[in-house]
């Protein structure tokens, strides 16, 4: 059956228009669906749908129900009542809570040029309840793209779904898979990384999914200097977590040692500046990689000793084989690791106060003598 924009049934079975005629059919379909679910998934009890939803489903449970758009595209108007019932909104919302523009039957005429416009028309629907997340999206790179470049940028429903909204993080891998629908290439690299492998192959929820670093609603443009400067902080959220890192025998010293080193010092400075050059200093991801990050013991790891000089050359093009040795590999200097640096530091810790205090004492003696002689 096909419907035109006015919502009149034009299909062969749609001749007898009118809600009352439609209702019994709807009841039957829902009943059948409920029975289907009960039989198929014995553990899942279908929730009872509110009468209004049942009413709408009278028409919209028709799988062939479509809306013809000016662009020639067709939009299915079928709603699986069962899917909706199991969705997170199943027992909370009625159809018109979101579709607030539709109050009557036949539905008021809406002229949608194309499929995207149809979806965009309902962009504001979520705002009524999810105002905080809605406003966050206005700061996101997705909204920037949407408002300036392309209507293809994702809206609420593109990630969350419409009638089948479920808890986004169940299971956790679902989040990364959602992003992968558009960010395919990044996802594939992520899937091969130490984080991605653990998540996708072992269902390990300790590792970050896309939104842990990029956030979900207020996604910042990751190509900006300000995002780059936040990288150490982002990685450190997990990598300075004692409990978590002990589980994988990883050091929690990585942030401190980075900040004490030249690169980290520079990064700290640029953090406070309004204007930051695009390439200024190395942050975590410049050496370790971003989505394709590998365990440091992996021979393919960019920070493996044999590969390190290549990483250095990204910024120091004429770096020689000996150059990477300047980096202490996140080790705190100690008698075992970098003993020379350790003892040199120790020497200065005593030498500087010794010299200064000694000379101050001499001055004080001098003063004392001058006072006594007076």
């Amino acid at each position, binding site marked *: 059956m096909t419907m035109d924009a006015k919502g009149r049934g034009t299909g062969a079975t749609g001749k007898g228009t009118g809600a009352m005629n439609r209702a019994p059919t709807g009841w039957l379909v829902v009943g059948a669906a409920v029975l289907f679910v009960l039989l198929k998934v014995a553990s899942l009890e279908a929730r009872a749908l509110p009468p209004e939803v049942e009413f709408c489903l009278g028409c919209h449970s028709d799988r062939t129900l479509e809306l013809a758009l000016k662009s020639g595209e067709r939009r299915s108007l079928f709603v699986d009542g069962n899917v909706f019932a199991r969705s997170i909104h199943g027992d909370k919302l009625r159809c018109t809570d979101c579709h607030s523009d539709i109050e009557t039957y036949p539905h008021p005429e809406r002229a949608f040029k194309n499929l995207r416009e149809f979806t965009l028309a309902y962009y504001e629907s979520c705002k009524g309840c999810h105002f905080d997340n809605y406003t966050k999206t206005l700061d996101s790179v997705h909204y920037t793209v949407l408002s300036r470049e392309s209507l293809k940028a994702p809206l609420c429903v593109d990630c969350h779904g419409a009638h089948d909204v479920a808890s986004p993080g169940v299971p956790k891998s679902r989040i990364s898979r959602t992003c992968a629908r558009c960010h395919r290439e990044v996802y594939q690299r992520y899937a091969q990384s130490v984080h991605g492998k653990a998540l996708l192959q072992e269902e390990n929820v300790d590792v970050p999914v896309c939104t842990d670093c990029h956030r979900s609603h207020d996604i910042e443009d990751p190509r900006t200097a300000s995002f780059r400067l936040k990288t150490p902080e982002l990685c450190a959220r997990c990598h300075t977590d004692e409990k978590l890192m002990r589980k994988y025998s990883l050091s929690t010293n990585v942030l401190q040692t980075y900040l004490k080193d*030249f690169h980290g*010092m*520079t990064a*700290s*400075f*640029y953090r*406070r*500046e309004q*204007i930051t*050059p695009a390439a*200024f200093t190395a942050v975590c991801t410049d050496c370790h990689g971003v989505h394709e990050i590998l365990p440091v013991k992996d021979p393919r790891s960019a920070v493996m000793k044999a590969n390190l000089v290549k990483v250095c050359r990204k910024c*120091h*093009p*004429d*770096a*020689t084989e*000996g*150059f*990477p*040795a*300047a*980096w*202490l590999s996140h080790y705190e*200097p100690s008698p075992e690791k*970098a003993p*020379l*640096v350790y003892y*040199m*530091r120790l020497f*200065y810790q005593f*030498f*500087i106060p010794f*010299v*200064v205090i000694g*000379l*101050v004492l*001499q*001055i004080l*003696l*001098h*003063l*004392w*003598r*001058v006072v*006594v002689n007076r």
Partner: protein
Amino acid sequence: MERKSPDQAPQYYLRIHLYHRLLHGLLMTSFLGLAATGMPLRFNQAAWAINLAHTIGGFGAILFFHRTFAILLTFCFLLHIGYVFHLAFVRGEIGVFWGPSSMVPQPKDFLDMFQHFRWFFGMGPKPRFGRFAYWEKFDYWAVFWGMAIIGTSGYVMWFSSLFARFLPGWLFNITLLIHADEALLAVWFIFAIHFFNSHLRSGRFPLDLVIFTGRVSEGELQEERPAEYERLVKEGDLKALQIDPPPLWLKNFGRILGFTVIATGFLLFGLTLLAFLSE
């Protein structure tokens, strides 16, 4: 008689030649600049360091100024080395390396130091200092050593890729450490010890203008450097050093410059000391 006769006005002698005064000016400017742009890096976690760096124009700007002052100080260092060599090998004044006018520590300096300490405890007379007292020589060599060490390590880091061709990589960790800590020592030494010994000690407080005017009065020379005075009298060189009293404009110039630098130095000394103690 209302006006002082020429005989009664104190006679002044030239102690520091214009060349050395200018060189000291260059040294002072570049050292202050290096300290002001370097210490925010050394204590990069302190709030004042971040604000100071921000005021100067951000990290890129402090790096630029630090390197500019470094070139200036290197120039100063080379000028001095050139001067010493010119004096010794062109003009044949070997006394620059050994003797009463030399900066090289003499046996007398160790004796002076020993006697000075005896005097501190009231166990003997004040030593009779020569042209350069032992602590002035210490000052000189501290700066000399500091420039060589901090300068070398600074250039190694500046041109790290170039030096990495023939230096092992681990050396860069040492250079960063030496550069930062040796510089801190230099800053504290200059802004506390040198300032005190030159300006804040009794008889000179609050400012010794000799480094700006180059002149000392006969009384000052006799009292502070009796050995030098006697040597000049004995060798008949004193007459040649006679000079007009310092003009007022020069004294005022010295006062303004001197107090500005001392105030800036003390501020940096206090800030770095606080940051060091809270590290």
